[in-house]
């Protein structure tokens, strides 16, 4: 009988530690499927962040480095300069990329580092227990914005993709969501395209994935998916933000 579904070769057999309903697992799979389809697993070096995906080095079945909080784009720069013929990707959350690692992502993008960043935006710090992130929506309650995020004191949620798309070094930037099947398929396409752009040597590539955190949002998995659709997408519009010719 023909196999119609299987685990990508680019994922290890290690059971993932993610909470029920969290979309990290889906995004891991999309990245792994991309590596399989482009036949680049043996030539790919991934960088895990600090945050919920800190153990990504146990899940991606390729050479991996674990970076300090926010520094993945700098680590990726070091790797890519040593191995310009390899495919290098970082996998980072919103606290990692948009807060503590804001300088590193901006300058890696601006240098046009030929890497791919998978940016998980779930509007909250997950691993540390639900603190406010730079991407937390206005009025969103977190443990460090218990009265809801206020623009006057906490500023506005950062649209990283739009910001990075303004940089000349950025070759491909797209925001996607994984709240339903249709959008998951689109996310897969975007991730594959970003890797293809990197392989073609066009410059810095990033896919921002709007994701869930049922545990820290205090919602069921199903409610979380609805919340992405109804609250996140209106503020974080989906689509291609930058596509170099």
């Amino acid at each position: 009988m023909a196999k119609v579904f299987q685990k990508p070769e680019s994922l290890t057999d290690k059971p993932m530690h993610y909470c029920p309903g969290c979309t990290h697992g889906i995004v891991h799979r999309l990245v792994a499927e991309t590596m399989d389809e482009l036949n680049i697993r043996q030539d790919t070096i991934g960088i895990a962040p600090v945050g919920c995906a800190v153990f990504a080095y146990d899940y991606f079945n390729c050479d991996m480095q674990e970076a300090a909080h926010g520094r993945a784009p700098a680590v990726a720069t070091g790797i890519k300069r040593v191995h310009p013929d390899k495919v290098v990707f970082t996998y980072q959350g919103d606290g990692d990329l948009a807060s503590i690692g804001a300088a590193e992502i901006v300058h890696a993008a601006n240098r046009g580092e030929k890497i791919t960043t998978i940016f998980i935006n779930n509007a909250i710090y997950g691993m540390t227990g639900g603190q406010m992130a730079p991407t937390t929506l206005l009025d969103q309650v977190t443990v460090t914005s218990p009265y809801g995020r206020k623009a006057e004191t906490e500023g506005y949620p950062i649209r990283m993709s739009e910001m990075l798309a303004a940089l000349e070094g950025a070759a491909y930037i797209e925001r996607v969501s994984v709240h339903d099947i249709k959008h998951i398929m689109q996310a897969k396409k975007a991730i594959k395209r970003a890797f293809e752009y990197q392989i073609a040597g066009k410059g810095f590539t990033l896919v921002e994935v709007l994701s869930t955190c049922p545990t820290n949002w205090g919602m069921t998995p199903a409610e979380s998916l609805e919340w992405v659709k109804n609250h996140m997408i209106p503020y974080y519009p989906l689509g291609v933000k930058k596509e170099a010719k």
Partner: protein
Amino acid sequence: MSKVLMKGNEAIAEAAIQAGCRFFFGYPITPQNEIPAYMAKRLPQVGGCFVQAESEVAAINMVYGAAGAGARVMTSSSSPGISLKQEGISYIAGAELPCLIVNIVRGGPGLGGIQPAQSDYFQAVKGGGHGDYHLVVLAPSTIQETVDLVRKGFDIADQYRNPVMILGDGMLGQMMEPVEFKEAKPRRLPPKDWATTGWKGDRPRAVINSLFIDPQVLEDHVNRIYKKYEEIKANETLVECYNCEDAEIIVSAYGTTARIVRSVTEMAARKGIKIGLIRPITLWPFPAETLRSWAQRDHVKAFLTVEMSMGQMVEDVTLSIDGLKPSHFYGRTGGMVPRPADILAEIEKIRGVNL
């Protein structure tokens, strides 16, 4: 090869290139700017790569990535910049990555000054970043020695998979001396089969990492690293003993300060005072045994440590001689350099008390 006249910072950069370093990541800061400038010019000529990072934090993490990818890699900075690099240095030590870090020390704390100092000794030798780890710290006192130690530093880093620091100062970085780039006998180094180079399945999957969430696993990891440190102590400790054979007072100093103390020994001899110099070349591992063995000699009455700081290495000297003889300190700080006459006056004062 004949000698060439070179500025300390440029000599460091050239020595690194000759030692096979092809990757440099740095950020501007005085008084070490000639190192990145030299690297920016020379590395592309030899097929290497120079990146001016957006910060010292980014630079050291680029070093982490490149070292983890198997390259011979370095960064350089000066005191405030080295403080910023401590996060990455701790991760590099934890992930057991080889690299060379050059600190051309300037006065501190804070923004401090830009004149030579030795006030980063504690930071270099006692940790600097978080966690249980050590750098191998090399402290040259001439530009020739700096050049020789750069190659040695890369070799030690690769042999033990541990970051190595060259602890210089603004004086060593800025002055010019004749220097010879000698053909060194290459060490037999282990293959970097742990590096992330793309996994073809012919070795275990490479994971560069310093996270060990199970405390027992982390303790085992740290214990293994500390076992390695014992090997480094046994194999790599370097110290110069000058004029100690019949010395009444032994002066300990490293780097630039040791050069000054060397001329004080001659001034003292003319006054009939017998002074020896113990110059640690490796500040970690510290030559504690050597100091202790001299402290056991009857002719040695006292120890004096001279530093361009408020007294940092003196703690290791005092620990090493373990109360066998009195331990004194003299230092200038903030970018001020001790004058030979003042050191001699200090020696005469100690002599009056201890002899």
